[in-house]
């Protein structure tokens, strides 16, 4: 029952992400637009490129969707509304999302097209930049909660949210999450003006619909992960827990989608250099600071 409910909420969340995304681009709230776009995609032909790696080409969109759903399985929306409260929940999110890279690489290689292939390579490079900045801030979050249980992580923020307790970790995680969801300005693998869609370029019809759904689910899952790690999850006054979860997740999603509109796409070389030169030392510093705080504060 919980599983079905969470899956339905994930679908609803993905739909809302699409609505918010349209809003950030056109400035208009069009509740029905993603519905029409989705149906239209299903009505179009879905063609296979001429020399595909058929397995990679077919599996990639599905894998992207699956990895987002897997990660969503350990995200608690209320103390009880969680598919499985794994003892290794915090790490499981990271483990599930590794398949995003695999899916994009497959989508890049599968169609045997130049733009897609370069998009796949770019995301492989991007992984080297963001991967450590996902794991290391999570480490600091776990240190405070003294547990990998995602519910326990939320409970540990009862007094002070992690965004206040470890702001540095929040900034790093937020940036890395955007890079993982290949949202602008980190949309290197799909870059419209540089690769005409990149890894997405060769997908059409139903396959494209699955790919886009996977991307939307990934965004909402990462926003939810940000909320439980740093924004106190379901906690908040007056409103019921589910409402707080929903509000926080949608606000984080909107922020993630808005930021990229106001700056040009980052250069891949800069992303790599900055993440290694500044990101990792800062993440280590964050772990150290949180360690000191955990020891000093009761």
């Amino acid at each position: 029952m919980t599983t079905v409910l969470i899956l339905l909420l994930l679908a609803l969340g993905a739909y809302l992400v699409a609505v918010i995304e349209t809003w950030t681009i056109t400035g208009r709230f069009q509740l029905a637009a993603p519905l029409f776009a989705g149906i239209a995609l299903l009505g179009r032909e879905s063609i296979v490129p001429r020399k595909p790696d058929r397995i990679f080409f077919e599996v990639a969109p599905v894998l992207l969707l699956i990895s987002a759903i897997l990660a969503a399985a350990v995200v608690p929306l209320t103390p009880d509304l969680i598919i499985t409260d794994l003892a290794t929940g915090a790490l499981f999110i990271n483990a599930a999302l590794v398949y995003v890279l695999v899916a994009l690489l497959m989508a890049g290689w599968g169609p045997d097209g130049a733009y897609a292939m370069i998009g796949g390579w770019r995301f492989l490079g991007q992984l080297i930049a963001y991967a450590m900045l996902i794991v290391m801030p999570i480490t600091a979050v776990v240190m405070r909660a003294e547990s990998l249980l995602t519910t326990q992580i939320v409970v540990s923020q009862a007094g002070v949210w992690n965004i206040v307790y470890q702001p540095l970790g929040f900034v790093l995680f937020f940036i890395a999450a955007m890079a993982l969801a290949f949202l602008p300005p980190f949309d290197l693998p799909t870059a419209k003006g540089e690769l005409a869609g990149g890894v997405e370029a060769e997908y059409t019809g139903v396959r494209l619909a699955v790919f886009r759904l996977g991307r939307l689910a990934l965004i909402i899952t990462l926003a939810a992960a940000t909320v439980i790690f740093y924004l106190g999850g379901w906690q908040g006054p007056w409103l019921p827990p589910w409402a707080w979860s929903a509000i926080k997740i949608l606000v984080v999603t909107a922020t993630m989608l808005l930021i990229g509109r106001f700056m040009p796409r980052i250069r891949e070389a800069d992303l790599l250099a900055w993440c290694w030169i500044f990101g990792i030392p800062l993440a280590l510093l964050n772990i150290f600071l949180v360690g000191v705080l955990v020891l000093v504060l009761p």
Partner: protein
Amino acid sequence: MITGARQGTLSGLRRLVSIAMARDLSTFLIPGPDIARAHGLDFEAAGLHPVASPRHASVLLIVGAIPPALREAAAIIYAQMVRPRVLFALGTETLPPLPAADVVAGLSQQDLIQGIRQLRSAFAEGAFRPDVSDFDAPMLHVRIEYTCPMHPEVVQSEPGSCPKCGMDLLPREAQATAGHTHADHQEMDNSADRQATSTHDHGTHHTMVHDAPLEYTCPMHPEVVQREPGSCPKCGMNLEPREAQTEPTHDHHHMTHDAPVEYTCPMHPEVVQSEPGSCPKCGMTLEPHEMQDTQTQEHAGMDPHRDHSTMDPGDMAFMSMIDVTQDLPRSGDGLPMEWIEAPFGPFFPGLPGGLLLTLTLDGDTVAGSDARSLIGNGDLLLQHLSMDSGSFVERLANRDPLAPVAYRLLACRALENVAGMDIPADTACARIGALERERIASHLGWLALFGQQTGFDWLRRHAASLQLKFQQADLKQILALKPAIQALTKRLQRTPLLESRTAGIGQLAPDATLRGPVARATGISDDARSTDKTCAALGFTPVSREGGDALARLHVRLDEIAHSIALIKAAGAIELPAPAHVGELSGTGEAVVETPRGLARLQLTLEGGQVTATQLDTPSTHHLTLITPLIEQQELGDALVIVGSLDLSPWEIQP
């Protein structure tokens, strides 16, 4: 009814789908958004949703008349679009080889909106049809040519044997030739193939594959190769078919199959022996290696005819990077990767429409490039033309939709020079007003394209809407827009990542061949307006910046927008130049105009009032040659920013 309908009867569910499609008009724009805006069209406000890949589009929108080479490229784009698809033409009906447009409308926002209404109803009613015919055009067919595996210079259109060595020639797909300008060669083939599967034309590609001898090999044990299907004697897996490899450059293993084998330890390369066994240092089983045959290797490495787009993991040893990469050409960084040739354009979302940039990519680094314009605007260069002066001015003005005022002014000035006329000061001022207004609009259009290219969506939309406002603005409106320009400039100075994206990219040294903002960004204050008395009287001073990189070019354009507003204010009027009446005059004349892209020069000869010879020199023609040296060894994203920062107009490039 739409010609690009998808096959099927319009049942209840499909009716619903059709209605959804009519609401969601994903549009691919030809020649590009820059031209649409130059015609004053705001297609997003009209309800079209632009997409970057023709694969994702259901509407192909053609804006204005386009030359034959672009129509050919557009036909390929149309074939790449999945059905149902519609063709929507604005201001033109000459489309072959494209099919007739489903909806035709005039070149104005009003007509565009009207046309979209028609488009929606056409979609809702005709997205599915039981009898669909395929779109076919000559450029969609894959041509097969035959070549000798040993003598790549032997290429012919018929099968046969090599005149040099007598070997049977092998079929291969013909490489994209000069006239073929695909947005993506592979994509084009797909669509040709897709259509082939549904109709009469059985794809040449299939025939080719089936005619080639097949052999069967184990995916895990590449040394197992046999003519018949079966299972692997080593692991029992089903053997997989592949084309028999006879080209030596394609298959290192087969080529050197008889080469002596030596055994070496994967961890200790210094351990080499001629017999199998285990490593004396670590005990690992030694792996067989073919002894290097330096001669063949060199030959393979230098062979320029290697088909880099073929990536068949089947002929590579499992996971051996050395085997995979040893025949590949090396680029500057020494890291061997597959080189791929990819076309960017002529309708690439981040480049000016009509510009074809073919990049040879080594990974995502540019190893080679070729840039040219597909517009082919050479008709005015004819030495023996005869045209009355009035229509000559119109021809030159309509030649470049991105700078019509500047070229109109150029033609008028040249005619006046022949006639030895002097222009009244107030007319001259009003002309400057029109020229500067165009410069502002053009620079804003460039900013919008830059925003599009770099995914800076706010800039794309904001600059585009400002451009549309400036284009037809009168004096009062322009002065009212001044704060918006100031705000834009301020915003861009504070934009994160903008500097890192452009600083040091596309560095140019001061050079006499540079023109316009590109030259002035290298610190040269070279501007044709400096020598113009009217401009000097209006308080013109050339804008220049040090740096010579893409960032400096961005800032020069921003400064020029501000300066142009000041000039328009000083000029006090805006008036399009009108051609002087020259009568039966004969003689030669010359004129220069600082167009938004730099100095353009026109020399013309009049005989009895007829223009008989012209010579035109445009900035983009010079800047086009900068591309190849500038983007060599640059990362793809940087290379595109460099090409974009030159602000080329394919319409003014001389063939």
